[in-house]
């Protein structure tokens, strides 16, 4: 969900990547220029996952890998896909466009037939043409920048609702709360700015008064200057579109500075750590826009227990989405009875209400969810986010 490269560098990287991918594909067809180990194996179906396992976003990589691994294990225990086991192959994209391109090529050369990764939008974007060249269908669990949709590729499907859908939920909630002066703060990353812009646009057309549109630098500790601006703007409703670490700090520090209004956060902030970082007595009046939390779903306790037992750590953001991505992809391959991209794409588009954590999944022609399914969650007694308002009616 981060982008750090300028457009021209990005374009060059993409061009380079495409040619490398092509070269790899040609080598593959030729029957192995030293690549016999990497031939598509007959015994397993390889799912590839790009996620950040190093760098500042590395926590999310493990959450995603574990979620996906759990799904793979379940499906294999259940007989796999028509008797073939799924094998999960992960590569580190470091949340960086250049690293991601190399990692995507590596996955392709390892013979993956489906991609179930993608966390940072900025790192996922340049990998799209590589997977298209290699004819690999993609179900992206986390990355949800509108840029991914605008790339207009037939093999791209987003499990996570897009920024536009999420912003709509935030605006609906602001109106419901009767907020009169709205502030929005982003953390200057691609995903966050995207969401903030979308929110401002929709809030204005809904007739809401946006009094502050600020940006802050992530990875720091002191946001009292921003908190101060928020108080001064006189806002009674703020939408924070960044991640939980800065979100918790901002929430605490703005309350310390005297902010008394509603604090609404985006889905990147939905994590139990948000409440821990905010601290006791700072969790009142905090809400977030989120797809759906595991604890609202039947059988989720077991899922969380399984996950915790297996990985020694509780599931985090995008564990469930990655779990879903694998299941959706497996379902589509099963339905298509083929791993050819064309067939799998069609099967993905044909899915109708596939039961997933994030609600029933039906894809639009564009590959986004037919229903964003965003709800409003709030911090419960144990510090985790629980359903507050599903915004239905």
């Amino acid at each position, binding site marked *: 969900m981060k982008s750090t490269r300028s457009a021209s560098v990005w374009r060059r990287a993409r061009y380079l990547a495409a040619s490398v991918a092509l070269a790899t594909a040609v080598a593959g067809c030729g029957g192995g220029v030293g690549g016999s180990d990497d031939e598509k194996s007959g015994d397993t179906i390889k799912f590839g996952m790009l996620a950040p396992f190093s760098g500042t976003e*590395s926590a999310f990589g493990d959450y995603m890998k574990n979620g996906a691994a759990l799904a793979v294990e379940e499906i294999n225990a259940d007989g796999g896909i028509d008797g073939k086991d799924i094998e999960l192959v992960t590569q580190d994209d470091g949340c960086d466009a250049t690293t991601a391109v190399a990692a995507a090529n590596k996955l392709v050369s390892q013979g993956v037939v489906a991609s179930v990764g993608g966390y940072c939008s900025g790192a996922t974007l340049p990998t799209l043409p590589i997977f298209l060249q290699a004819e690999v269908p993609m179900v992206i669990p986390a990355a949800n920048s509108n840029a991914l949709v605008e790339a207009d590729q037939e093999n791209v499907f987003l499990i996570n609702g897009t920024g536009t859908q999420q912003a709509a939920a935030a605006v609906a909630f602001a109106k419901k709360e009767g907020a009169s002066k709205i502030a929005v703060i982003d953390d*200057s990353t691609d995903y966050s700015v995207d969401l903030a812009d979308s929110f401002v646009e929709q809030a204005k057309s809904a007739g809401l008064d946006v009094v502050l549109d600020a940006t802050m*630098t992530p990875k720091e500790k002191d946001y009292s*200057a*921003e908190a101060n*601006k928020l108080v001064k703007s006189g806002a009674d409703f703020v939408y924070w579109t960044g991640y939980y670490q800065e979100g918790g700090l901002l929430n605490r520090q703005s309350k310390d500075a005297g902010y008394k209004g509603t604090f609404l956060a985006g889905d990147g902030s939905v994590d139990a*750590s948000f409440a*821990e970082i905010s601290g006791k007595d700072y969790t009142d009046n905090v809400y977030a826009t989120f797809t759906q939390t595991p604890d609202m779903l039947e059988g989720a306790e077991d899922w969380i227990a399984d996950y915790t037992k297996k990985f020694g*750590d509780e599931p985090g953001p995008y564990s469930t989405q990655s779990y879903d991505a694998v299941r959706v992809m497996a379902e589509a391959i099963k339905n298509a009875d083929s791993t050819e991209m064309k067939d799998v794409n069609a099967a993905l588009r044909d899915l109708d209400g596939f039961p997933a954590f994030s609600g029933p999944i039906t894809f639009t022609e564009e590959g986004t969810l037919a229903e964003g399914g965003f709800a409003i969650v709030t911090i419960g007694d144990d510090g985790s986010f629980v359903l507050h308002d599903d915004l239905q009616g």
Partner: protein
Amino acid sequence: MSQIIINGLFVGSFYALIALGYSMVYGIIKLLNFAHGDVYMIGAFVGFVLLTSFGGLAAAATIPTLVLLVLVAMIFTGLLGVTVERVAYRPLRSSPRLAVLITAVGMSFTLEYAVRQIFGPSPKAYPVRVSGGSVEFIGARISTAQLVLMALAALLMVVLAFYVNRTREGRAMRAIALDPAASTLMGINVNRVISRVFFIGSALAGAAGVMAGAYYGSIDFLMGFVIGIKAFTAAVIGGIGNLYGAMLGGLTLGLLESFGTAWLGGEWRDVFSFACLIIFLSFKPTGILGARVVERM
């Protein structure tokens, strides 16, 4: 306006505490200790480990607990600093400056990713928070926690200034900064003094780490990176090698950032503060107090 100044001074006092270590080490052996920011991070983690392993500590009253934590963390990070110097810097003391710079960068990564392996990459929440009410002070809102932490930082700096300027060991440090060879001839044990400088500098960074953890409430293995660079900047603005310069530089940087955010917005803060620094340094490359060579140490 006064709120902006208070915010700036508060952040600045953290920068100052860490900048002191940078400045002292540079003053005495002309080394940029890039692992210094990570010592700050380790300090925060030492406090975290203590709090989580002794549940009683977290339940106790916060201010004495905090002081105790700060002391333990200071001893630990001080010893860590001495070890780092012994392992990564002393063997290379007569090597080209660049080689030591690289071992410093290497040390920084070693510490960061060792902590990542032990504690995991996700941020940890601090079990103890210094909190309390806030007071109005010439139109600004300042919490008692901020006051306590600023007082603690000031106290540490005063003790340090006294130590360096008024004691025998302090005089030895200043002597080595002026001329290591002559100091050796005068019978000063240079290695021991350098170890002591590392101990003190690292202990201050460790103290800042615990204080930041207890105030902001979230710590992670990369928390030392940005603040390390900022503290280094602060040390240079103040005049690297100069004790008071480091304190002044830290406060200056904190104020610049605070005003940058207020006037131009958070996304322009670093642009504003660093542009000011470039302009300032091109007129006065030695920093605010850098010219006062006599006071170097």
